[in-house]
């Protein structure tokens, strides 16, 4: 019953949060409406989200987000430096194949997004079987190191989160 009413409880929470962001306030009335929408909308859209993504470790997810934000901040400066100061012919770009162990679509998606958002790398493609990501690194004199960092710094954490 509860499962049927809340097919994706985290989505419901997110939506309620979103609504509060939208209306820019915390009035009770808004909360009631937000709750109603938070229940209604997942019911409407659940057909388009057939799998049941399960987050095993919520704190780990939050920690992951914090990590990524930090990485974005730091690495942006790196990229800015490359763009501004490095001579074009000194930029060592490379395609890197990164085999992955993640199996859930959400996990893979988050990993791909992370790779793109953290500066210096872009997820360029995935193998047809879904087990290898193609990464393009803006400046990677040592491609293997990049691959290893992705696997250790992000994928390992995500495996803990999405299982």
């Amino acid at each position: 019953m509860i499962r049927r009413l809340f097919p994706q409880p985290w989505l419901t929470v997110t939506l309620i949060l979103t609504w509060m962001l939208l209306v820019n306030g915390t009035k009770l009335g808004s909360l009631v409406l937000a709750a109603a929408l938070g229940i209604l909308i997942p019911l409407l859209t659940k057909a388009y989200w057939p799998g049941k993504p399960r987050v095993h470790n919520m704190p780990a997810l939050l920690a992951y987000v914090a990590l990524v934000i930090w990485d974005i901040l730091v690495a942006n400066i790196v990229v800015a430096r490359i763009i501004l100061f490095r001579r074009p012919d000194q930029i060592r770009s490379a395609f890197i194949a990164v085999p992955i162990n993640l199996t859930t679509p959400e996990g893979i998606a988050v990993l791909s997004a992370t790779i793109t958002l953290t500066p210096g790398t872009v997820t360029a493609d995935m193998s047809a079987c879904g087990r290898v990501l193609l990464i393009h690194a803006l400046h990677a004199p040592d491609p293997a190191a990049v691959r290893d960092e992705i696997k250790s710094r992000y994928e390992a954490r995500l495996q803990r989160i999405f299982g």
Partner: protein
Amino acid sequence: MTIALIAVLPFVGAVFPGLMIRAGRNACAIVTGLVTLTALILLASQAPAVLRGEVVHSRIAWLPGIGLNADFMLDGLGLLFAGLILTIGLLVILYARFYLAARDAMGQFFTFLMLFQGAMLGIVLSNNILLLLVFWELTSLSSFLLIGFWKHLPESRQGARMALVVTGSGGLAMIAGLLILGNIAGSYDLDVILSQREAIQASDAYLPALILILIGAFTKSAQFPFHFWLPQAMAAPTPVSAYLHSATMVKAGIFLMARLWPVLAGTDAWFYIVATTGLVTMVLGAVIGLFKHDLKALLAYSTISQLGLITMLLGFGTVPAATAAMFHIVNHATFKAALFMSAGIIDHAAHTRDIRRLGGLRKAMPVTFAVAGIAALAMAGIPPLNGFLSKEMMLEEAAHTVWGGNPWVLPALATVGALFSVAYSLRLIAHVFLRRAQPTAGTQPHDPGLGLMFGPALLSALVVAIGLLPMATAAWLVDASASAVTGTAVTVKIAHWHGFGSVALWLSALAIAGGAAALFGFPRLLRLWDATSRPDAKHLFDVAMAGAVRAARRVTDGAHDGTVTRFLAIATVVIVGSGVWAFRSGTHSPGLRTATSVEPVAVIGWLVLMTATVALLFHHRSRLFALMLVGIIGLIVSVGFAYLSAPDLAMTQVTVEVVTVLLLLLALNFLPKTTPDESTSGRRLRDAAIAAVAGAGSAALIYALMMRDFAFPTIAAYHLENAKALGGGTNVVNVILVDFRGYDTFGEITVLGIAALVIFALTEMILSAGPANDRLMALKPNRGDAGDRHPLLFVVVTRMILPLALMVGVFIFLRGHNLPGGGFIAGLIVSIALLMQYMASGFGWTAARKRIEYHALIGAGLLIAGLAGIGSWVFGAPFLSSAYTYVDLWPLETFELATAAIFDLGVFLTVLGAVMLALASLSRLAVRSGEDINRAPYDAPLQER
């Protein structure tokens, strides 16, 4: 009412032949005849009064607003003509019964004939010139139908058309003439008009009216130079020739001249135009007639000539001449109808009408010989037959008429005309009957039965009777009609002998002798005739016609050749030109508004916009790039809206923009990817010039408008003032959309809904069997295209965005009344979110999960919007009246409940349904073109848990 009844009876009777033809040809003819007979009897019942000098009237108001009434009158002139029409009509019906072949559609024939009869009676009985016009044109029409009766013959069709064109155009001229006449007289009633001779002849408009009316009369009565249609009309069945083209219809012009004689005649203009035309026609017709080998053509030219004679008499403008004209009308009707019918008999019997192949019929067809011989002698004006009497009168009048100060011209030429009349009449008798049978003649001809013979025989008998006893048989009718024409009591004295002092006698003798001599020397004359080149009126007509048609085709095929780009160019030039003209022809005071200062950021945006627009002009042939540039332009325009205090506009613009781009991309998938470079530089220059002028015009206009203040306080002030208090919202734009001008929005979403329906219908059409579908099936899309239709990352992100976007949609919808947003933008946002879903996971997968038909969304949306409007009726308020209230409902804070929100919901649903239906329809085309339907949301083989 009897008079009106007489005119109406044939029209009623026109219905019967068509119906009775199933009962047999006899029944058909009898009914037709009975109707005519009834009308004749009715006419006879009125005759005594008319002969006493009374004018019988019947009046029915029809369109008094324009002076057109069904007013009829019967006077002597009418009696003469109506009598002719009905009497000869009766004989023609009898004749036609036996003349028409079994394969001819007799019912149709008699129907047309009765239509004609009614129209003709209408002309002669009208007491209203507009009514007369009505009947006048009807005779042209029915004549057209009757000439074209043998529709398989090209000459019938051509003859019919020519007759229609000539008499029709005359009729149109006459409309103008009669309208002018009516304007001068202040009435279209003949009574009134005929009493205003002085006013009419003194008017400046007299001459144009006269000329226009005469064009009508001359065309109808085949007067030179409009005579050429009549010989062509001989393609009609002979009863038609006898009836319309000799006895009655061609005399309509004569009738009109006679009818208006009291007010139009008597001026120099009248004399010189009418008498001269008549004279020329008489001579010319007679000369040409002599050399015609087709029996009916000879008769046609003789008719032209005789009509010329009558016209000339009317043109003299004197009472005796008019009287003679009346008498000749009667005589001509009798002998010419008899001759035409005889010609038809000969044609039937000998299977040819070619005089050169005829001969010796005196023995083979003695009765016909007698009948036709008498009629032809009358036509020649041989005493004591009736033709002699009237021709004598004509020569007498001609002899006393001075033309252009010269007393000889008229009598001389009239005698020439008479001479040739004698010649062709004698030729007819001699060549057809008297000379030996020609070797080329095929079958053995013989006299027909009584059915065919009765009509001509009776007419020939009349020829003789009138000839012998004119005072007893015809004088009363001539008196009555001549009195009616001239407006003075006429008592005619018709005699065979006026003594040797009569000029006419000598002229007559001269004509007969000369005619006989001409016949004697005919072969030599014929050679001479054949050797002279002369303008052929028919040929000239055909050339003119062909030229007109060619010119017309230049209009249809040349100017309207489907080159819409030229049409648009013309339209643009006209629009800009008119606008400039309108501006320059009015006073303009420059605006005094303070301009808005500009900030650098605005200049940057403006530069981007201008650059992108110019770039679009140069790169438009690369379609994808062009689309991107349009996207940039749209983006900047919407930022501009935001910058200039129009957030609602910005939101609408940008969302509509992206949907449009998606739509165009979907279409571009099938269309060519580039536009070929096919304009010449000249053309590009032309288009650029047009575009530049249009652009300059619009820029100047908006600048002039922006820089001035409104001339009056705007209605928008009211909207700003009352949006909150009366409309319950603070977003005034939204309050206008759903309330002040909700009706506009209602129409607008209807447009959107219809567009989607049409797109759907068109998709169905393309997908159903046909060349489009074949082309679709033949397309092999995606060969060599990249793989990965549905990348996993996109799919997962879309899953997260969809609920968020729905949330945003609801938010935008709910707050729209007070802050930027509303049903329309919300509908677009939700559409875009759904479209994203389609793009991410594909058509098949997404459509399979769709719960509601988009059709239903549109229908429901429009209905909800409509019903929200209708709902106000319950409260006695007008359509789309709104109400709002504040509701306190724990635990919610006070919120507003407005009926306008229901209307906005309708807007939302319609927009959503329409956008989705439109794009889904386009996607279906791609599915049809051989795409496989995806069953998984993404291509990577991962397991969803």
